């Protein structure tokens, strides 16, 4: 297809080249103004097409030019869409230029603030400007990147307010350390950690306790961001050093600008969105609580079980009277009848949710003179989640200013202060998660109206083993707040006209307080796993990251188009963190949520520091703007290594060749291919080790069995100290990621079509992992440099402007990436490393397989994939060979299609986010089916007219006896009489019928999670907005400088073959595990209105 396309292209181009023009000069005049705000545009290039002749507009945006009648003029201006207008016989041509945000980056800022011409870049980076970023008015800026940049994959954990998002740039580059990119705000690295789920204790992240936490990027206010630039991978990010192997997200905040004649501007941006659940499961509403199997597991008449396990395989709901689920005491207490009318409550799960709202207000004051500029803002975000008790409130203050004090000296500062508070509710594989069994509530249980709390505060629920969803939401609390300062001061001094010094000192520091309450009587683990006696935790964390940069930049343009820029610099970066926590358990009373109310106390304290120093050099060589070569080198010293191993060096090289500029005689006189560039880059980046991995220590004793039971010391009045399970390794050295990329950029027909294709490959070696060793040595693992991981792929970005005229413009952008992550090698003697979250259903790192391949217990199948069925009872077997490879969570490709229509002031924008392939393993779907609440479990009738169970299901499969022929590594097959089949005999198809409960209960039993695999492909309307910008002329008599309003939405539509759930989830927050889901919350859908104005 591409081939044909190119062929047509070539044809058109050749035709265009054949055109000639005829000259007959006369004077043409006109004025160029901006489409957006009507201001005059000085400095616009007006050229006669096909020649180098032209002029530029004056300070009033006016021009005059001698032209011939049949010529076409090209009006081009940095940051605007070029326009071509045929002169015809006009003598005045006034033009409104539409700004083109994508073209803004004529000069782009790359790593360490180095400015380069965008078209000369040899590596990959992409910028998103404020307008594109804020379309969906999301809370978490990471989510705003979703679908917008090729090769950048964003996965939101869930739809809970303040939940984290996982960012993967070009796949993964390391095994178990963070694969999240480095965040840099105004040149200073900042923290984007903290998204790990888990309890209120120190460093405990697990799937069994706690809440969904935020990644710290959520602190940043989208309305203060001018651009977000993604430096993809090592080549673009090499100068940022050891933490940039996974790429860098470089954020530039807004600076003051003069708006036309106005020196000062006051702006307001506000939005109000409703927040609701994106997708609910489809439920049956015909059958009530209970079972229709007898003790021997055989179909039997249905039994209504008001307070036994949560199965919905009971009798047909037809308004009959059934016994109450409540004890006599509770019936008296709540005035409940002894029996109730069996009724279906179709919305009982939905009743757990509410309509939330997201409100954002932002006021900024900004301005500039020719010597200085300032920008102050205050932002308020209030996000009320779709579950009771979920709330996030954020206040952001920003102050940016810079001033040119003398001709040589410029000083600047960028400061942001953030204060936010969150209230979260329990998630995870635990009974305090309101949805742990809440997703499969019996259809006849009226959650909203049945009692949940006794007057003494204790909970009441039909299921005595699970926390009542409302009770846990109201009583098991997790509140946190954060006070954060991000700021830097910077100084630029021009030593000579070719040599500049820049110094920058910055910090990112925050204090976080967490307050957690596990209520007395909680049946789940909640935050602290104290088994019902109640606990309160107070945790205070202080993190401080300080960075210093010094750079010297020398630029020299030689004659004949040759230019050199050399940058030398250093970085000092240090991180200090203090964590103090106290957990008090065994609460005296339930009405006093203060740690003084506890009887036993467990203190925690942890402190860490990490220091890194780097020196670097960057050499840019340019020739006439069309040949560019950049060489960098960096040497780091990291405190995470032992003395002799601290220093390591890594280089990079990138270059580009703009053929369309280099060969004007070939490209100059044609329309079709207006730009052609080849680019390539190679880089190597080191990565540090995790902290304290070079020595072995003694740990505080804390035996545990993985199910929750544990012994915390001091125990029986004594402290305990145990030799760490992990041995330190003083020989540890850095791991390295090498990347190579090659790309081609093309633009056609005055940039109406732009195509950018990049092939990249990354290979990480000496990966630092905790390698499992024989525990009989006394250690279970040791930190080593071992393992190789590869990530390869294609990225594409296609821009297309089908319509472009003065009033109407339609832009389409289609970006996407196809990425393959393969584990090439693990440490010797290590078969695999589990990424969790469970023993069965786990993501694995295993040599020869894609990263995170899912393994689980599953039902026995023949090598041809047929299920093996027991002829005596028609039921399947668990595969006795243990965990089997069941799925690959990595998508085949992901991408986004943005459509933007603008008609005068009206702008319509929508983004379609696409994911193709990538398996999901959903325990929710398994639960919905196993327990008989899913709609499909009632598609066939369950009972005959006499109320007896029907055997109307047959498992598709062949007969066998459940054991394995070890020689063939295949199941032993039998005939219907259970006699083993002779070798080569055809398999006998299963014809033994079973009941619906047997069918769904067996195929989706929780001992075989490998059966819960679905193709996670989706297409979704990720973001949409319709905005109207009131024309300038209408505002001239009002105090408004500009006025824009509109409606917007996020996650508006979802198309997927996965039943019941939204396949976008990430239960381990921003950890590396992908694709496995349990009891998770759906993504949120939001829609509302926004208003933007300035005075």
């Amino acid at each position, binding site marked *: 297809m591409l081939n044909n396309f190119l062929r047509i292209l070539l044809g058109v181009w050749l035709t265009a080249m054949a055109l000639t023009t005829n000259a007959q000069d006369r004077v043409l005049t006109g004025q160029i103004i901006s489409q957006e705000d009507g201001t005059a545009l000085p400095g616009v290039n007006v050229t006669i097409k096909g020649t180098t002749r032209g002029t530029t507009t004056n300070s009033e945006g006016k021009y005059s030019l001698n032209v011939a009648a049949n010529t076409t003029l090209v009006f081009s201006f940095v940051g605007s869409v070029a326009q071509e207008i045929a002169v015809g016989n006009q003598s005045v041509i006034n033009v409104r230029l539409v700004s083109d945000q994508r073209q803004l980056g004529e000069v782009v800022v790359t790593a360490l603030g180095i400015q380069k011409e965008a078209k000369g870049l040899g590596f990959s980076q992409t910028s998103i400007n404020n307008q594109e970023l804020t379309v969906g008015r999301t809370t978490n800026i990471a989510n705003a990147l979703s679908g917008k940049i090729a090769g950048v994959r964003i996965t939101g954990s869930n739809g809970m307010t303040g939940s984290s998002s996982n960012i993967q740039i070009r796949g993964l580059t390391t095994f178990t350390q963070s694969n999240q990119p480095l965040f840099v705000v105004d040149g200073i690295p900042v923290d984007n950690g903290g998204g790990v789920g888990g309890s209120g204790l120190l460093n405990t992240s697990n799937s069994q306790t706690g809440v969904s936490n935020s990644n710290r990027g959520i602190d940043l206010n989208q309305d203060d961001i001018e651009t977000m630039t993604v430096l993809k991978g090592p080549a673009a990010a090499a100068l940022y050093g050891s933490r940039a192997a996974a790429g860098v997200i470089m954020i530039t905040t807004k600076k003051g600008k003069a708006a036309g004649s106005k020196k000062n501007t006051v702006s307001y941006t506000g939005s109000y969105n409703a927040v609701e659940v994106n997708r609910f499961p489809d439920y049956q509403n015909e059958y009530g609580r209970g079972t229709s199997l007898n*003790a021997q597991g055989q179909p039997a008449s249905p039994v209504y079980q008001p*307070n036994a*396990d949560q199965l919905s395989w009971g009798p047909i709901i037809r308004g009959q009277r059934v016994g109450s689920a409540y*004890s006599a005491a*509770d019936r008296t207490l709540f005035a409940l009848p002894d029996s109730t009318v069996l009724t279906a409550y179709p919305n009982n799960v939905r009743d757990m949710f509410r309509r939330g709202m997201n409100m954002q207000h932002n006021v900024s004051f900004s301005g500039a003179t020719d010597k200085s500029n300032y920008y102050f803002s205050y932002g308020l975000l209030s996000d009320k989640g779709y579950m009771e008790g979920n709330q996030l409130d954020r206040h952001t203050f920003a102050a940016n200013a810079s001033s040119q004090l003398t001709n040589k000296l410029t000083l600047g500062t960028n400061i942001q202060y953030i204060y936010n508070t969150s209230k979260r509710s329990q998630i995870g594989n635990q009974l305090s998660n309101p949805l742990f069994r809440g997703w499969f509530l019996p259809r006849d249980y009226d959650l909203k109206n049945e009692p949940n709390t006794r007057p003494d505060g204790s909970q009441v629920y039909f299921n005595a083993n699970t926390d009542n969803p409302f009770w846990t939401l109201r009583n098991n609390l997790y509140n946190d707040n954060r006070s954060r300062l991000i700021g830097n001061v910077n100084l630029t001094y021009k030593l000579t006209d070719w040599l500049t010094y820049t110094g920058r000192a910055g910090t990112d520091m925050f204090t976080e307080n967490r307050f957690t309450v596990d209520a007395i009587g909680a*049946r789940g683990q909640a935050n602290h796993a104290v*088994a*019902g006696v109640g606990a309160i935790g107070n945790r205070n964390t202080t993190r401080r990251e300080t960075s210093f940069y*010094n750079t010297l930049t020398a630029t020299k343009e030689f004659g004949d188009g040759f230019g050199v820029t050399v940058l030398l610099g250093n970085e*000092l970066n240090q991180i200090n963190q203090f964590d103090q926590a106290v957990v008090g*358990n*065994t609460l005296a009373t339930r009405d006093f949520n203060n740690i003084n109310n506890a009887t*036993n106390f467990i203190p925690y304290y*942890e402190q*860490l520091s*990490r*220091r890194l*120093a780097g*020196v670097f050099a960057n050499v840019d060589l340019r020739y006439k703007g069309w040949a560019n070569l950049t060489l960098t080198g960096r*040497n780091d010293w990291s*405190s995470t*290594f*032992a003395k002799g191993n*601290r220093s390591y*060096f890594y280089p990079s090289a990138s270059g580009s060749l703009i053929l369309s500029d280099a060969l004007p005689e070939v490209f100059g006189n044609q329309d079709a291919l207006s730009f052609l560039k080849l680019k390539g880059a190679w880089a190597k980046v080191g990565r540090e080790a995790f*902290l304290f991995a070079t*020595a072995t*220590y*003694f740990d505080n*004793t804390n035996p545990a*069995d*993985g*199910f*929750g*039971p*544990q012994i915390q*010391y001091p*125990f*029986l009045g*004594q402290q*305990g*100290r*145990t*030799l760490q*399970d992990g041995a330190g390794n003083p020989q540890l050295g850095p791991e390295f990621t090498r990347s190579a990329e090659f790309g081609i950029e093309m633009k056609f027909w005055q940039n109406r079509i732009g195509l950018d294709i990049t092939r990249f490959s990354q290979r990480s070696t000496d990966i630092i992992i905790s390698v*499992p*060793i*024989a*525990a*009989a*040595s*006394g*250690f279970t693992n040791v930190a080593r440099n071992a393992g190789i991981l590869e990530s390869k792929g294609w990225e594409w970005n296609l821009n297309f402007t089908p319509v472009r005229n003065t009033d109407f413009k339609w832009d389409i952008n289609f970006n996407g990436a196809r990425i393959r992550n393969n584990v090439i090698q693990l440490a010797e*003697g290590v078969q695999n490393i589990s990424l969790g979250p469970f*023993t069965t259903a786990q993501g694995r790192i295993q040599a020869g397989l894609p990263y995170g391949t899912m393994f689980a217990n599953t039902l026995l199948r023949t090598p041809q994939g047929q299920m093996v069925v027991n002829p*005596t009872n028609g039921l399947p*077997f668990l595969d006795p060979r243990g965990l089997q490879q069941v799925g690959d969570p990595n998508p085949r490709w992901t991408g986004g299609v943005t459509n933007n229509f603008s008609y005068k002031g009206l702008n319509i924008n929508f983004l379609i986010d696409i994911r193709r392939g990538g398996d999901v393993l959903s325990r929710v779907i398994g639960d919905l089916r196993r327990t008989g609440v899913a709609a499909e479990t009632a598609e066939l009738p369950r009972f005959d007219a006499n109320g007896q169970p029907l055997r109307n299901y047959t498992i598709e499969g062949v007969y066998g*006896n459940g*054991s394995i022929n070890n020689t063939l590594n295949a199941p032993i097959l039998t005939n219907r009489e259970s006699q083993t089949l002779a070798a080569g005999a055809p398999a006998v198809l299963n014809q033994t019928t079973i009941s619906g409960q047997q069918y769904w*209960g067996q195929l989706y039993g929780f001992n075989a999670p490998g059966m819960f695999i679905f193709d996670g492909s989706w297409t979704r309307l990720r973001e949409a907005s319709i905005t109207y910008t009131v024309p300038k002329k209408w505002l001239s008599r009002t105090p408004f400088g500009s006025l824009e309003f509109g409606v917007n939405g996020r996650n508006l539509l979802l198309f997927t073959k996965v039943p019941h759930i939204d396949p976008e989830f990430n239960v381990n927050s921003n950890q590396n595990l992908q694709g496995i889901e349990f009891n998770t919350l759906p993504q949120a859908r939001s829609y509302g209105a926004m208003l933007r104005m300035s005075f």
Partner: protein
Amino acid sequence: MNLHTLSFRTLSVALLLLTGTGCANYFEVNTSPNLAATAPANLLLTSAEGMLGFSTGGEVGRFSLLFVQQIAAQNGRQTEAWDIYNVQSTEVNNLFRSNLYAGALADLEEIIKKDPQSTHPAFFGISKTLKAYSYSVLADLWGDVPFSEALQGTKNTQPKVDPSRDIYNGLIRLLDEAIVELNKTSSLTAPTTADYVYGGNAQRWIRLANTLKLRLYLHMLNSGAVTADAVNTFVRATEASTTVGFMTAVADDFQQRFETTANRQNPVHQFILTRTDDICTSTTMINLMNSKADPRRAAYFTPAPFSPALLTTPPTSTSGYIGLANGTGGNQVRNTLSRIHTFARGALTTAAASLPAGPTLGVAQLTYDGTAAVQMLTFAEYNFIRAELALRYNGPGDTQTFFQRGITASFTDAGLAAQAAAYITRQGTLTGTPDQQLQQLIEEKYVSNFMVPMEPWNDWRRTGYPALSRIPAAVNPANGGRVPRALPYPQQEVDANPNITQRNNLSERPVFWDTRTTGPQ
């Protein structure tokens, strides 16, 4: 590149100085301020004892007691899979690796490696006794495991496995060494409160070491790895010793106590708190005790069908308690069954009056203080060992006397000493053929060893008693319903140590003394 690196280094030093930071110690921040670099013997000992009590009472107990049908499982989760003998090799990683080898054993080895000039010999004696106990659990569960090359840290990350017979011989030597150490005197500080088990009482440790040796000999007798004469000589010599012999009272019980506070409670109790319905009682155990109207049922199990009044006045007939046949959990929860009670969970903290009268709600609302001790080797068991030695191997002493003493000790452990005599009158006389007497003896030992990790299963593997029910063939056809004789090796250990070869199934007999070919398998 070298020149490159060199110039970078020079430049770096210059630039570091420029920013006003000294270089010398700048990077020396990678020593953890959060963890200790050393550990004295007393902290290692509390650590090892706590871990041993927790993991043997917890995971070791769950596997071995399901196999020997003291408990059963329902509710379709992991426990029920184990009850139909589906134990995945990945499910024993934590027990084998973190809790036993890299847990208790690594800490005990740290003590044993300490300088005798500065560490009281009792630490060595206690550590060697506990090490012997730990390895006996490892060898009985997995058979051949690393022993002679084990616990050498990163010096040997792939230790070879030793035949279980060699390990047993090594454990006898280890216990002899322990007794020597425990008999030493020293002016150094002896362990006191750091020893949860006996508070530093060296004499009780010697009694345990001798009694443990006797338990190991009993296993070895089964395969002829030791002669009856040799064992009887050892017994006579130990009894004649003027210093310390075998256990003498229930106060000598080798057990780990627990606290009432959350996360410091008995591991069985904690497991039931997080997995409320998963563990229930087995018909094998319940029916055996029902048939004898055993008063200990009131301490072991909740009455069924349940009513609050039955807590204060337990059923005394041959009914009133209901178990579940192993392997028939069927993914369901039944609230009609007897559950594990005070003996394994601690004192009741629910007032009976506060419970609803309903037959199913009340039992789920019972609460316990979680202090029940995990018993690893009791005085009762010592007496049953002696009774068996006298009955089968011509050992010293009177079978009948030891048998009745064992029952009495067990009743004392259950807090029912007053009812022992009446029970002994009914059930305390061994009758019938020698084999019938052995059955009666082992069945009493089985009841008295309720919730003792390993040993009831070991007894079944040795003697075939008590008669276990077969799990339905349909739920685990591959196994044919045979009771497991081993656990799979942990998958991570197999992966990390090429010296270990995974076994084909749980019916393989890994431990050398498991030679019984007659009777139920």
